[in-house]
C-alpha cells in the first residue's frame, strides 16, 4: 500500500511487468518503472525515488468490519468477477518459484510477515506468530510486538514503546476474547495496540508496516534478512 505521490506530482500506476514473480508497475505520468514490494523506482525518469508506505493491514473481513463499521469495501468489477479465484492461495502454492534460498527451515512459499526496523530486516513465519502470539522481539535495537487477532489469521506488528518506556504485553489467559495485558497487570490492550484500561488508557503503540509475503520473495528483496525462531 503506497502513497502515490512524489513531490507535488500525483502518479497513477498500472501493471507493467514482472521481476522474479514480484510485479513491476509504471506510472502514467512519467513512464518510470517501480518495484511493487519495495516501492522503489528502478528505471526511468524518477529512478532512485521511493514511494512512502501508507499504513495498512491485512485482516480478515470480519475483524476489520468490527473495527471499522463505517468502512467501505472495494466492489467487484462486474466483467472480471468470474476471474477472481476463491482458492487462489492453493493455486499459487503449486506454481514454480524463480529463485530459491535453501539454508533455512522455511520453504519458498511459506508465508512470512516481514519487518524492517532501522534497516534491520526479519521474517516471522505467520504460522509461528499465530501459535506464539503475542511475540516480543527486538529489531533494529527496538522492542517490537507481533500479535495475531482473535480470528487466528490477522496479524499486526507494533513498536512496543510508549513515551520512551518499553511496554511488554501478554495474552490474558482467562479471557475468551482477544485481550492483552501489560507486565504491570494494570492495563488491558486490544488488537489495535491501544490501551483500553489502566493508567495508559487511550494510548496506542505505533504500528509497524507488516508485509505479508512468500519467503522467497521477501528474502530476494531483503538479502540480509534474518528469520525469527524461538
Amino acid at each position, binding site marked *: *500500500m*503506497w*502513497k*502515490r*505521490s512524489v513531490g507535488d506530482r*500525483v*502518479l*497513477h*500506476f*498500472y*501493471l*507493467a*511487468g*514482472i*521481476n*522474479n*514473480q514480484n*510485479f*513491476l*508497475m509504471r506510472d502514467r505520468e512519467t*513512464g518510470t*518503472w517501480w518495484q*511493487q514490494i519495495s516501492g522503489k523506482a*528502478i*528505471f*526511468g525518469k524518477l529512478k532512485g525515488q521511493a514511494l512512502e508506505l*501508507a*499504513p*495498512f*493491514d*491485512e*485482516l480478515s*473481513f*470480519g475483524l*476489520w*468490519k468490527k473495527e*471499522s463499521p*463505517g*468502512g*467501505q*469495501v*472495494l*466492489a*467487484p*468489477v462486474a*466483467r*472480471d468477477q468470474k*476471474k*477472481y*479465484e*476463491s482458492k*487462489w492461495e492453493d493455486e*499459487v502454492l503449486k*506454481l*514454480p*518459484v*524463480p*529463485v530459491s534460498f535453501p539454508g533455512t527451515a522455511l520453504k519458498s512459499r511459506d508465508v512470512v510477515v516481514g519487518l524492517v526496523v532501522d534497516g534491520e530486516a526479519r521474517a516471522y513465519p505467520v504460522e509461528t506468530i499465530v501459535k506464539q502470539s503475542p511475540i516480543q522481539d527486538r529489531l533494529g535495537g527496538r522492542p517490537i510486538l507481533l500479535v495475531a487477532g482473535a*480470528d487466528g*489469521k490477522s496479524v499486526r506488528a507494533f513498536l512496543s514503546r510508549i513515551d520512551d518506556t518499553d511496554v511488554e504485553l501478554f495474552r490474558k489467559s482467562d479471557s475468551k476474547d482477544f485481550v492483552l495485558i501489560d507486565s504491570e497487570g494494570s492495563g488491558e490492550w486490544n488488537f489495535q495496540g491501544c490501551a483500553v484500561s489502566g493508567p495508559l488508557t487511550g494510548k496506542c503503540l505505533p504500528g509497524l508496516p507488516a508485509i505479508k509475503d512468500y519467503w522467497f520473495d521477501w528474502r530476494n528483496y531483503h538479502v540480509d534478512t534474518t528469520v525469527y525462531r524461538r
Partner: protein
Amino acid sequence: MRERKQGWGQEMLERQKSLYLVFWLLVLIGLAPFVVPAFIIRPFRYQSPGALHLALVFRQIAPIGTVLAACGVLGLALGAWRSTARKQRALLILGSLLVIGSATMARMNYFEWMFHPVEMPGFQKADDAKLDAGEMVLTVSIHGDARAYPVREMAYHHIVNDVVGGVPIAATY
C-alpha cells in the same frame, strides 16, 4: 559492349544483395525491442538484474525504435518490389508484417490483457459487501476514512489507484 553489360548486371546483383541484407537487419532491429523484453520478462523465470535492465532499456526505446525500423523496412520493401521476383516478394511481405506486428505490440500492455485494471474503483458499505467473515482484506485508514480491498480481488487486479481521506494511494498486492 557485352562485357560492360555483364559487369553492370553483376553490380546490380551485389547491390540488390546488400539491400536484402539491410532489409533483414532492419527487420531484426524492429523485432528486438518487443521480443527481447517479452522473452526476459517471462513469469516464473529468473530475471537477473542485468537482464532486467536490458529488457527495460529495450522497452524504453520500443515505441519509437520499432516505428523507425518499420518505416525503413517498408521503404526498402517498396523500393525493391519491382526488381524482386514474385516468390521473393513473399519474403518482403513477411518481413514487413513482422516489424508492423512488433511496432503494434510495443504499444500494447499485454499484462493488462491478462489482468484487467480497475478503471474506476467502486465501493460498497461494509454491511453490503458479500464477503465471508474469514476472507482476507487489505485495509487502510487515513483521516478517519477506512477502506478494505478484498485480497481475492487484488490477487487478480494487483493495483487499485484510490484516494483515501484525501490522500492518493495505490493499493497493491
